């Protein structure tokens, strides 16, 4: 009974990177929660060795549900297997990556069992009562909410890329528990074809320098100058949600809860207020520079270097100056 469960999502025969990120979350919370760290994996038996690999990353148990029909993700089937496992084994916590699959699956389990589910957590804490505090940016502009679940397991999803991956452990101590299912429920879904899509890995997530713009750049022509600066600095261009919606740039440049998470050495935000929905995406930045006419803007408070001024003037001047220096 009990346990800190992590959904072991497959991706092309391996585990999705978010599984390792959730393992690092679980390991960090272990001293406070004292729950056994369990990765729950569904699949046919030939995936056993991959599943066992998770023990090397700090899983104390890999709970492997085996059936030939579990070869690929089907919402109804997977959620029934998981719901039954939860009802029987009563974990304390159950986390999922907020991937397409995780977001399709976690709410089905929550709905089936009548459980609370918190989307897109960016941090976790444990309170005196041993409850998991699920932290996420809240509705209004600049507040984070601490959320608890009245039901068990406490369920939440976490966006990939927010937490670092778990490092391998020296001496894995966990065990693989294989549960051979005699029968699984039928599924209403039958896969016909799978088409690989061109992987559009955003250059943002790995960029050393990110130059981002917000509504304070006032016009698209101003925003477009960010590309020049990005090129000069060998970086990538990021944006806030409103400017993506204004059509200044496509959504894959969005940084924040609804977009990418970045961790560059240098982030410069031009005309960005610094709403938490945006800044949760730049937590990993080493040096944050904000350029804003309003010295009280939240991003200015959060910055290492706060430049007070008109971003539409500073941006072209900065480009010129750096160009001069680079000769």
């Amino acid at each position, binding site marked *: 009974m009990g346990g800190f469960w992590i959904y072991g999502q497959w991706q092309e025969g391996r585990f999705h990177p978010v599984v390792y990120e959730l393992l690092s979350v679980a390991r960090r919370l272990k001293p406070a929660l004292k729950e056994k760290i369990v990765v729950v994996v569904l699949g046919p038996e030939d995936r056993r060795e991959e599943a066992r690999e998770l023990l090397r990353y700090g899983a104390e148990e890999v709970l492997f549900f085996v059936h030939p029909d579990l070869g690929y993700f089907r919402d109804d089937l997977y959620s029934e297997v998981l719901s039954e496992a939860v009802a029987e084994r009563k974990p304390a916590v159950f986390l999922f990556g907020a991937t397409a699959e995780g977001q399709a699956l976690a709410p089905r389990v929550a709905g089936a069992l009548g*459980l609370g589910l918190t989307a897109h957590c960016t941090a976790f804490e444990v309170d005196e009562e041993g409850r998991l505090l699920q932290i996420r940016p809240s509705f*209004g502009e600049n507040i984070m909410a601490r959320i608890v679940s009245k*039901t068990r397991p406490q369920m939440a999803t976490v966006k990939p890329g927010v937490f670092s991956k778990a490092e391998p452990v020296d001496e894995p101590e966990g065990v693989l528990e294989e549960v051979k299912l005699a029968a699984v429920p039928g599924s209403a*879904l039958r896969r016909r074809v799978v088409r690989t*899509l061109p992987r559009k890995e955003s250059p943002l997530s790995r960029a050393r320098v990110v130059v981002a713009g917000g509504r304070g750049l006032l016009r698209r022509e101003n925003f477009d100058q960010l590309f020049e600066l990005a090129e000069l600095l060998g970086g990538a261009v990021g944006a806030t949600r409103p400017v993506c919606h204004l059509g200044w740039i496509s959504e894959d440049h969005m940084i924040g809860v609804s977009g990418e998470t970045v961790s560059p050495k240098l982030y410069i935000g031009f005309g960005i207020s610094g709403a938490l929905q945006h800044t949760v995406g730049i937590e990993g930045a080493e040096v944050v*520079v904000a350029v804003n006419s309003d010295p009280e803007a939240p991003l200015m408070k959060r910055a290492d270097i706060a430049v007070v001024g008109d971003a539409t003037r500073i941006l072209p001047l900065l480009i010129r100056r*750096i160009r001069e220096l680079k000769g």
Partner: protein
Amino acid sequence: MHFIVCLKPVPKPGAVKVDPETHTLRRESAELILNPPDLYALEMAVALKEKHGGKVTALMMGPPNAADLLREAYALGADEMVLLSDRAFAGSDTLATSYVLSQAIRKLEPYDLVLMGKASIDGETAQVGPETAAWLKQPSLTQVKALWPEDGLWVAVRFFEGFEEEVEFRGPAVITVEPEVNEPRPPSLKRMLAVRALEPRVLSAEDLDCNLEKTGLAGSPTQVLGVFTPSYDREREVLTGEAEEVVEKLVSLLRTRGLI
């Protein structure tokens, strides 16, 4: 065929107010709009109806003043308007919301498909679709890009990271539609005029035979304990002055730190 499209009233971006006590949105205080991602679901349903016959029911849980948003949905091609409105629904999290929607959907039987937007722009959880399907014990398919009937079955194309899947299934089912997969039509003038004389059907918790322990705050297992503003007490440089001047200062700071 009967398509039910769930539509959410959301505060117009930039106009959000949070109740200082419950930390939930105060919907009555802000101007409401149709959740933009839901328009793709509505368009998908209306296009299916036009091609294969049938009707589209626009279903919304919201305050009484959200009725006009249902009229907007009518102008966009919906045929029937149903508003779920009751004090008992206030403060519902995604589980309680999906419970209420599922109770209403049962009342609207028979139907072929329930369609929803991928997520709402205020909560952005993407949970209500699959949760509703779970209450109804029906299949759910998320992030659907295309959908058509074929030999008594449905075929959907849906997105995952790095691949898309073509999948066949038997309805009824709950579908969430990926944004930007179609072009929502502009409202029809004729329908705008026609809907003036129409009132949405309003259903209460009692009409839906809701168990009040499952709706509103009481039925919401997630609870906001409190909110906080993260503080960043760190050393920072504030650069002020003429634009040329601050650029000079900034460049030299970045150079000394080896950043450019």
